[in-house]
C-alpha cells in the first residue's frame, strides 16, 4: 500500500484555468511534507515545506496547504511554463523522503 498517493495522475488545463493537485498520506508522526517540481530529465526542484495541519505557503501562482491527512497544491491562473510534474514527499521517521508518483500538469495557451 502506497504511503503517499497523488491525484490526479495527469491534469490538462487551459492557461488561466485554476485547479488543485492532491497529495494524501498515511504515515503517522509526520515530520514534514514537501512539494517539488520536476521537469523532464531534471532533478526535483524544491517548492514548499509544510510541517503542521493548517499551515499554508505561497509562491507566485502556487499555494500549498496541509491537513492531517492530505495536502493540496493550488495553482491560480496557470501559465504554460507551469507545465511540469509536481511531486509530493513526506518525512516520517529518519531521513528518507517518501515520494508519491506525481501529477503531470500540462498548461496550454
Amino acid at each position, binding site marked *: 500500500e502506497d504511503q503517499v498517493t497523488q491525484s490526479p495522475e495527469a491534469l490538462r488545463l487551459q492557461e488561466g484555468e485554476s485547479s488543485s493537485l492532491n497529495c494524501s498520506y498515511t504515515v503517522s508522526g509526520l515530520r514534514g511534507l514537501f512539494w517539488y517540481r520536476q521537469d523532464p530529465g531534471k532533478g526535483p526542484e524544491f517548492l514548499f515545506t509544510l510541517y503542521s495541519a493548517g499551515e499554508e505557503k505561497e509562491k507566485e501562482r502556487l499555494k500549498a496547504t496541509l491537513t492531517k491527512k492530505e495536502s493540496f497544491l493550488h495553482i491560480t491562473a496557470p501559465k504554460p511554463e507551469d507545465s511540469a510534474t509536481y511531486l509530493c514527499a513526506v518525512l516520517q521517521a529518519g*531521513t528518507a523522503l517518501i*515520494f508519491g508518483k506525481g501529477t503531470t500538469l500540462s498548461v496550454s495557451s
Partner: protein
Amino acid sequence: EPEVTQTPSHQVTQMGQEVILRCVPISNHLYFYWYRQILGQKVEFLVSFYNNEISEKSEIFDDQFSVERPDGSNFTLKIRSTKLEDSAMYFCASSEEGRQTQYFGPGTRLLVL
C-alpha cells in the same frame, strides 16, 4: 543561489562494470543523500550520510552500493558490479543541519547495457 551539482550527467556502462557517480552538495550542508528514479517510476530513497557515516539506508542499498565523502566537497555513490536493473536517474541531495528540506541535484542518467 547555491545548488547541488552532479557529474557526469550521463553514463553508459556494461553490465558488471563499476561506476562512480559524483556530487558536490551545497557548501554549508551537512546531510547528504542519494535517491534514484527508474524511468516512469517514483523517486526512491537509497541512503543518507552524516558526519562521515551512513545514517540510514533502504533495502535497495545492498552490498553492491557504497558511499564516500573523499574530501571536503565531494560525495560519491559507487556501484560495484552494475546490473541491467540499475539503469535509472540517480539524484544527490543535501540539507542543512537542523533543517528537513532536501535540495536535489540535476541527476546522473545511468544506462547499463
